[in-house]
């Protein structure tokens, strides 16, 4: 039995320690907001936070988590919606939506680290997240919008 802290809740999970965190979240805990896309850390659909840092849960054995806190898309917002989620809604970012949990987790981690990211910061932080629908232009604009809203600076979106 392994102990996990997921979205602020302690969980006991009875799984093979080598099981990737992704499948523990999805199949054992029923947190299906985190997606499977490639299984090789190539697409970022499985991105969750480990103590606030974005990781690819599809290649992270659950035994490697230890006492670090796991946050998934279901637990990202502390109250109503995270600023990133609000910006995503306002700018109509998602299309099919499948990659968006991962995109949002990567974007939220970026903003936590870098409250007003440049386009280059966004390139670096977000290039591990694939979107087959090609929502990138709006993701970039939404990150800028979330940053400006959160820091109270004037809106200065580069696009959208």
């Amino acid at each position: 039995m392994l102990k996990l802290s997921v979205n602020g809740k302690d969980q006991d999970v009875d799984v093979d320690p080598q099981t990737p965190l992704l499948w523990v979240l999805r199949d054992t805990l029923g947190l299906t907001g985190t997606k499977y896309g490639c299984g090789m850390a190539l697409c970022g659909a499985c991105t969750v936070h480990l103590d606030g840092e974005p990781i690819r849960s599809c290649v992270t054995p659950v035994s490697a988590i230890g006492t670090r806190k796991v946050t998934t898309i279901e637990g990202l917002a502390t109250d109503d919606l995270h600023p990133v989620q609000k910006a995503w809604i306002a700018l109509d970012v998602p299309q099919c939506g499948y990659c968006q949990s991962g995109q949002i987790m990567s974007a939220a981690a970026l903003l936590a680290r870098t409250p007003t990211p440049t386009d280059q910061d966004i390139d670096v932080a977000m290039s591990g997240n694939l979107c087959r629908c090609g929502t990138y232009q709006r993701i970039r604009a939404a990150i800028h919008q979330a940053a400006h809203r959160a820091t109270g600076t004037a809106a200065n979106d580069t696009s959208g």
Partner: protein
Amino acid sequence: MNIESAGREISRRQFLKSAALGAGGLIIAIHLPACSTKPGPESSKPFEPNAFLRIASDDTITFYCDKSEMGQGVYTSLTTLIAEELGTDAGRIAIEFAPPGDAYINKLLGGQVTGGSTSVRDSWVKLRVAGAQAREMLIAAAAKEWEVDPRTLRVENGMVISEDNARKLSFGALAAAAAQLTPPADVKLKETSQFTQVGKPRIRLDTPSKVNGTAGFGIDVRLPGMLYGALAQSPVLGGTVASFDASKAKAMPGVRDVVQTSSGVVVLADSWWQARQARDALAIEWTPGARASLNDAMISRGLQEASRRAGIVALQAGDAEAALKSSKKVLTAAYELPLLAHATLEPQNCTADVRADAADIHVPTQVQGFALQAAAKASGLPPEKIRIHTTFLGGGFGRRLDVDFMPAAIEASRQVGKPVKVVWTREDDMTHDYYRPAAYNVCSGAFDAEGGLTAWKHHLTAPSITSRWIPGLVKEGTVDPFSVEAASNYPYDVPNVLVDWVQHEVGVDVGYWRSVSHALNCFSGESFMDELAVSRREDPVAFRLALLGKQPRYRAVLERAAHEAGYSTPAAGHHLGVAVMEGYGTYMAQIAEISLEDGKVRVHRVVCAVDCGQVINPSIATAQVESSVIFGLTAALWGEINVFGGKVQQTNFNSYRLMRMNEVPRIDTYIVDSTAEPGGMGEPAVALVAPAVTNAVFKATGKRVRSLPLARHKLA
């Protein structure tokens, strides 16, 4: 009934009608059993004026969305159409995906199909009429209640309101009375100027669930007692199971069963990870079948050889062959396009709960009717005992027009008597797709002594997707309309035109891939238009405009794109290439702005001018351009599926490259105001990117790229 028998049925009735859909369309009539998923009973009888709407006494208004939501925005745009006439805000409507049913047949395609960029075009009148029908009945119910002339009443925000504003009743309050009335035969639809929702900005209705992880995709379905399945399929395309030994797999943790299905061997376990691990422990002997020696060179050679044959004529004006023979200045060029994978980010999956007397199937599908047929065949149950639940689709792009990923889950569930979810790995998905056809297109043009273009010949050679999809549907000696798009609607004013098509099967199962043959034929056609312009030392935009005198919609988008892109004044070191196309009733021009960096193409900006007729939702229309440009650019730069020894060589995103954030150009979309009938927006912009970019590459390097992807060409 299975798809094959459906195909024969259709063929017999000769439902093939080319040119029914603008650039060439296909009517597929699929007769389906009656819908078996009627909503359950309720205390007070709800108002169901038609197959699309249900209004309950508690004011819950439900729209049965007959098209699948795969990112293209139907969840919002179609709801907007019905809400506009019903008289309530689209945001107040609950949306459920419709079950299979005759009422939901797409009249442009003849089956319950989400594809061919038809959703808005098919729904444009149908859903507004459905909304208006309900509105008139609600008004009639209020008029009866208040004993007034219904013509004095109006609707607003889900209420019927009297002329003097003194009386109001909500739709829910009127539902029971309205349910007693007969739907009106004729309804009057609003004029464009009366629209309050259509064409206006509206935030997408599916976004809230797509930003908090609650949107239900097929892969997310969880049923009580469900087992997770991993499927072993033949590594060689078309191979079958000869024998297998599951003893090692069965001994692994969590494994509950191993069953053989028509698709391969399925390992069933308590979690998908366990099933997937155990799948790799299966010892399977495969019968590789006829394709075991297939490779790229054979595919390419086969297309080129087939191209020597005369094709079936798709468009003819004057005598192009004679004009080509008699001209002193003739140009010919051949273009080659590779196989491509769809690579939906959600891998293929299906969840089945097959019981002795009924079944529930949860599936991300673009074809509810075919899904029902596949479920009936795999479960052995009559269709009326099967419910098809359409989930959100994690990308479609045409991949989910096929139902090959359904039988494994259904057959496994039937065998073990438990709900089963089968999820493909990314590798399964990449190596078992229905691939975008490879093609070999030869273009010829002839000039007269004065330099006027007198002949155009576009000789297409490719497999027929439709013949694979529904065998027998395309009659021998006729054109598959989904093979000659962006060719059979040649817009330029040239006296002698011949477009013909040679069907050549390449040994790989081919599928409809976003924009279908537009992406093949626009590449060759619009590249060759550039070659012709260059041979005359004319500017490619001016050359096209001079030949589009009779095509105001083409002209308008081309002029707009050139203007917005600053076509005549490119930045230093930047080069602009152009392409023009009509597809799905939508007119487009794109201009790609590129530079060369270390011999590699860097795309800085793509400008797309669009005339898609009446726009339903400007934000979604623009999003579809952005999406399509990236989809087409990804393919143009890197996309290819290679086959060796009958096996697809690309397996994951490290070998099949998708565009990333840092590689995306700025995409600027300009939508021309129009009140013409709506055109399709999900696909057309895919097709113009490749020729726009390669035409720019020619300007930058003097090198003409006649095959894709660009990554194969040395440009330095």
